[in-house]
C-alpha cells in the first residue's frame, strides 16, 4: 500500500448544533481517483470544504478529527493560502468571475505574485488547453468569462482550478449544470489529469463514479457507510444500503 496522499481521520463537521459529517475516515493514494457518492445533503460538500479549510468562512461551523495532506495535518499548515493553492476546487454551478477569460485563469497566479506577461500567457494557454476550452476561446480571451455558455464556464472554472498546478483536484458534482457532451469531454480531461494529480470526485451519478474512480466512498446521512475499490463496491458491497444506492434503488 503506497503512502496516502490525502487521509481523513474521524472527520466531523458541525453547523451550529447540527452535525453534517460524522467521523469519516478514508485515504487516497497519489494519482488515484476517489469517487464520493451519496444522496444530496449527506455532507459531501462539507467534506471538501474541510480539506482546503474554506469551511472557516462559514459562520457557526466547526470540525473535529484530522485531514492529512502528505501526512501533515492541514490545520497545522501555517499559511492557509498556500494550502488552498495546493488543492483545486470545482463546484456544481459554473462560476465565471466577472473578468475576461484571460483574467479568470490568471486570477490565482496573480494573487500569488506572478505578473510576468510571458509566464501568464503560457499558463493561461496551457490551462485552457488542459480544460479543452482553448480552441473555442483562443480568439476572444478578452471576452467576459460570465458571457460564456454554462458548459464553457464550467471548463473555465476547471482551467482556473488548474492554474496553480494543484496536487489534489476536487470536483463537486461538476456535471449537474452542463450537457452530456461537455460532461464526457471533462471526464476525458480528468482521466488525463490523473497522471499529474490526485482527484476527488464528488458525484450524484453512480455510473460516473464507476467509469472514473479507482475507489469509491459511499456517504449517507453524514456517515461513511463504506469505501473500497470501485468494482468491489459495485459488485460485492459489504452493506446492503450501499448496494441499494449504487443500483439506483434510493437516493
Amino acid at each position, binding site marked *: 500500500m503506497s503512502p496516502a496522499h490525502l487521509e481523513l481521520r474521524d472527520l466531523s463537521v458541525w453547523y451550529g448544533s447540527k452535525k453534517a459529517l460524522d467521523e469519516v475516515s478514508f485515504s487516497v493514494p497519489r494519482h488515484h481517483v476517489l469517487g464520493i457518492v451519496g444522496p444530496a445533503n449527506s455532507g459531501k460538500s462539507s467534506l471538501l470544504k474541510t480539506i482546503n479549510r474554506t469551511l472557516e468562512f462559514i459562520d457557526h461551523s466547526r470540525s473535529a478529527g484530522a485531514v492529512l495532506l502528505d501526512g501533515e495535518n492541514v490545520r497545522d499548515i501555517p499559511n492557509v493560502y498556500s494550502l488552498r493553492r495546493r488543492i483545486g476546487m470545482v*463546484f456544481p454551478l459554473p462560476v465565471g468571475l*466577472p473578468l475576461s477569460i484571460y483574467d479568470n485563469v490568471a486570477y490565482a497566479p496573480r*494573487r500569488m505574485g506572478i505578473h510576468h506577461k510571458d509566464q501568464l500567457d503560457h499558463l493561461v494557454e496551457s490551462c485552457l488547453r488542459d480544460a479543452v476550452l482553448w480552441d473555442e476561446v483562443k480568439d476572444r480571451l478578452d471576452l467576459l468569462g460570465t458571457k460564456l455558455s454554462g458548459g464553457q464556464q464550467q471548463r473555465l*472554472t476547471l482551467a482556473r482550478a488548474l492554474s496553480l498546478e494543484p496536487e489534489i483536484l476536487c470536483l463537486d458534482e461538476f456535471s449537474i449544470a452542463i450537457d452530456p457532451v461537455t460532461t464526457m469531454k471533462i471526464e476525458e480531461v480528468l482521466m488525463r489529469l490523473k497522471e499529474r494529480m490526485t482527484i476527488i470526485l464528488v458525484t450524484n451519478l453512480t455510473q460516473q463514479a464507476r467509469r472514473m474512480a479507482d475507489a469509491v466512498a459511499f456517504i449517507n446521512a453524514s456517515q461513511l457507510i463504506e469505501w473500497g475499490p470501485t468494482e468491489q463496491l459495485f459488485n460485492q458491497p459489504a452493506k446492503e444500503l450501499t448496494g441499494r444506492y449504487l443500483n439506483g434503488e434510493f437516493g
Partner: protein
Amino acid sequence: MSSANPFIPSSYELNKEKRARRAKWSTLTVTVALLIPVALILTLIALKAWPALSWDYLTGDVSRSGAAGGIWGPLMGTFYLTLLCLAIVAPIGILAGVYIHEYAPDNAFTRAIMIAVTSLAGVPSIVHALFGLGAFVATLGMPKGLLTAAMTLSVMTLPVIITSTREALSSVPKNFREACWNLGASRWQTIRTIVLPNSFGGILTGVILVIARAAGETAPIMFMGAVMWLRIAPAGPERLMPYGLNDEFMALSNHLNLISKDIPGMPEQMKFGSALVLLTLILFINGLASLVRLRLRRRKRW
C-alpha cells in the same frame, strides 16, 4: 363542472379578469395623482422665481437681509458644507459597510450594530442637531462652524452610506467570493479585485444621495454656525473660498428658511429664487445618481 366546455371562461375566470383590471387601474391612478402635485409645485416655484433669476442673482452678494442682491454666499456655503460632509462620511461609511457585510461574523454584536444603524436612520434631523451641539460643541469644545456642521450632517447621513454600501456589496453573488477563496485569495484580495469593482455603482449611488441629503437639511446646521449674513470678500481667492473650517457660514437651506419667515416685506421672487436654486441643485444631483445607476446596469457583467 367537469363536463363544461373548457374553452368557455367560467364566471370565476371572468371575475378574475375584472379584478385584475381594477387593480391595475387603481395603482395607476394613485401614481398619476402623485405626479400631478409634484409637477404643479415645480411649475409654481419656477414661475414665481423667474423674475429673480439671472447670473447676477447666483453670483451676487446677499444684501438687505436677502431682499436684494444674490445668493453667492449661501451657495458657496452649501457647496463646501456638502463637500466636507462627504469627505468625512464617505470613507467612514464605506469602510463600515464593507466590514459589516464582508467580515463581521453573524452574531448578536453584529445584529446590534445593524439595529443601531437602522435606528440612527430614523432619528429626526433636529435631534441630530442637538446631538452635534452636545457632542462636538459642549463636550469636545469645538467652535460652531463649517466643520462641526459638516460633522453633524455626517452623523446624520452615516446610515444612508452604510446601508447603500451593504446593499451594493450584497448584489455581488456569494459564489464569486467562494471561487476566489478556493483559489487561495485572501478576503481582502477578493474584496479588492472582485467585490468592490462590481459594487462600485451602488456605493456611488449612496454617496450621491448623501450629497442631496446634506445640501437640503436645515435643522442640523442652524444650531451649528449657519448664519443670516456674513461679509464675503468681493474678489480674489477668498470669494471662491469664503469660509474657514471654524468660521460661521451661510447656507442655502438656512437662507431660504430665514428669508421665508423672519423678514417682513421680502419680495416673493427672492424666496422662490433660492428655493428653485436649492431644488434644482438637489434634483440635479439625484438625476446624476440615476444616470450612474443606469449606465452601470447597462454594462452588467454577469
